């Protein structure tokens, strides 16, 4: 969060805002807007606020679709024996759950928040390339309709896991795999265009007087995430193009018969894969670094360390990829190399948690819903970080690899990590978007049911994994029965409690307690200087930003 801002006079007097009625689904008020209305407005919008809303609604709907797939998986795993689905469909469900959640829910969720908040936080009127912004959003519904349609194709949808290892994903894959590749290309292009847009906005359109070092940490983490996206999405595009050529044009990149090598696939995929998981967590660091200081009413502890550490994490994230492949048959030297680099990267990542706790120390803390989610992020993400530290020990990883212990690890880092951070951001910025405070009671209910649901779902997975239950199996031996039953109940609880989240959003868009421009007492970033709800066009005349000394 940027150094303390002197109180600034809101730029647009409320009178100027025109009628205040909330727009239809989009909670941005009409103001003096005169463009097309109704559906065409959303199709042709180049406004970063409307596109941000589109991204967030898309992300929420993908979150529910991916969630339903997860509930099918957990329902089948409720008891030993095959009760609901056949193994091939189960594999399709696990694969689609992974793909939809990673590429459809978490990434667009963060891009939506970036679209909404980066122009507001750097004092820019809009994103650098508004039309490109619209195009990169509308690529996503196309990509995911295509991906979801593969479930209905003969031979079924992708059933080789979201990591689509060859040769299961090339030689032995269902015929719909080519559509899977096309949809991943389109989603990849959308992320790349989004990243270009964000880099251009952050580097070139900051308010005069705001230098790189005055930017809030959310903007910093997103700049670094955008660099990661630019470096890594082309590698994903490369690997799926190689798959396409293997399947359709008779090459053998990954087919041992023709001189190829399946392990090469894993190397290239995870060279993309690990920076990708950092892409999914760095923006969450930015969000939590904005929320905790606000509700602790104290400046973020060690802002400089956070900026420097985040950039070093970005570089180190390219050196650790083979810790996903410890059991594939790497030579001893490679195992040692990747064990050491993985241990090294755990330090700057883990240490960031201490900065947040130091911010809390001797603060003056209040517990509104955004703060509750941010605190739950800190606690539960740290538990995920600890299991990550255990997985870094290569000899022990031979017992952990591809078991439910790994599933527990990455779900602790992703669900209470990225997803809780997105929800915290929504609770935190809803007053700015809609002009109303989210309903506190509903928010509390949603928070506590989600926290209990997340822990009930994923904590038992540590034990079923340690006891020897492999990943991605539709049925299991009797000794894992109780853990899986608990996980399935937890999953149901967590899934249904997200309906409270939707209810809260709808109520907040419609009405609720009016929110002033500076909705939270401790908030200090630039976005709190514009009125709530933020008018369609803000900062048309760039604000004069004057950083404070000390």
């Amino acid at each position: 969060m940027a150094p303390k801002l002197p109180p600034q006079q809101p730029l647009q007097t409320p009178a100027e805002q025109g009628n205040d009625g909330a727009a239809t689904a989009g909670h941005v008020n009409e103001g003096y807007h005169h463009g097309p209305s109704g559906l065409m407005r959303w199709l042709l919008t180049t406004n970063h606020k409307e596109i941000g809303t589109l991204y967030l609604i898309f992300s929420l709907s993908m979150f529910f679709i991916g969630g339903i797939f997860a509930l099918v998986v957990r329902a089948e795993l409720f008891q030993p024996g095959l009760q609901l689905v056949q193994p091939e469909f189960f594999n399709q469900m696990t694969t689609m759950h992974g793909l939809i959640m990673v590429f459809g829910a978490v990434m667009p969720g963060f891009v939506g928040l970036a679209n909404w908040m980066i122009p507001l936080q750097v004092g820019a009127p809009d994103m650098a390339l508004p039309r490109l912004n619209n195009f990169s959003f509308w690529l996503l519904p196309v990509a995911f309709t295509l991906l979801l349609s593969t479930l209905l194709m003969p031979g079924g949808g992708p059933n080789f896991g979201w990591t689509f290892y060859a040769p299961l994903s090339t030689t032995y894959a269902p015929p719909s795999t080519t559509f899977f590749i096309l949809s991943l290309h389109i989603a990849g292009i959308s992320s790349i265009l989004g990243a270009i847009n964000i880099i251009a906005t952050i580097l070139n359109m900051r308010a005069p007087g705001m230098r790189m070092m005055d930017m809030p940490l959310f903007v910093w983490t997103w700049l670094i995430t955008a660099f990661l996206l630019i470096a890594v999405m082309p590698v994903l595009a490369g690997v799926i193009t190689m798959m396409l050529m293997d399947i359709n044009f008779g090459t053998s990149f990954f087919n041992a018969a023709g001189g190829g090598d399946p392990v090469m696939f894993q190397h290239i995929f995870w060279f993309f894969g690990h920076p990708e998981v950092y892409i999914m967590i760095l923006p969450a660091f930015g969000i939590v670094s904005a929320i905790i200081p606000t509700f602790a009413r104290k400046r973020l502890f060690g802002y400089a360390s956070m900026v420097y550490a985040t950039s070093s994490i970005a570089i180190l994230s390219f050196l650790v990829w083979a810790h996903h492949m410890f059991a594939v048959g790497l030579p001893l030297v490679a195992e040692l190399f990747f064990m050491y680099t993985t241990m090294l990267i755990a330090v700057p990542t883990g240490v960031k948690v201490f900065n947040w706790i130091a911010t809390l120390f001797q603060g003056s803390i209040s517990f509104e819903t955004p703060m509750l989610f941010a605190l739950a992020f800190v606690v539960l993400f740290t538990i995920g970080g600890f299991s990550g530290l255990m997985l870094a020990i290569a000899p022990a990883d031979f017992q952990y690899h591809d078991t439910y212990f790994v599933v527990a690890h990455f779900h602790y880092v992703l669900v209470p990590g990225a997803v809780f951070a997105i929800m915290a951001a929504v609770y935190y910025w809803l007053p700015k978007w809609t002009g109303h405070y989210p309903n506190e009671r509903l928010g509390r209910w949603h928070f506590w049911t989600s926290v209990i649901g997340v822990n009930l779902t994923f904590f038992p997975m540590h034990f079923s994994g340690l006891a020897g239950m492999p990943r991605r199996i539709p049925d299991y031996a009797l000794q894992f029965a109780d853990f899986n039953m608990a996980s399935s109940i937890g999953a149901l609880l967590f899934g249904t409690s997200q309906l409270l989240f939707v209810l809260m959003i709808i109520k907040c868009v419609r009405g609720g307690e009016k929110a002033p421009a500076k909705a939270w007492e401790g908030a200090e970033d630039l976005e709190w200087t514009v009125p709530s709800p933020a008018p369609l066009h803000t900062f048309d005349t760039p604000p004069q930003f004057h950083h404070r000394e000390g």
Partner: protein
Amino acid sequence: MWQVLKSVLAAFFGVQKDQQRKKDFEEGRPTAFIIVGLLMALVLVVGIFLLATTAAE
């Protein structure tokens, strides 16, 4: 140049003083930081590789 190197090392370690950050951002050119950062990453890679080979004996 030495200052850029020290800052990149601090970044790898993850700790930096605020006023040092202000100085870095005031004078330092971003490309210098990126190049030195990548070089340091290379040095780190070679260093750990040698460590791993010796450890493997």
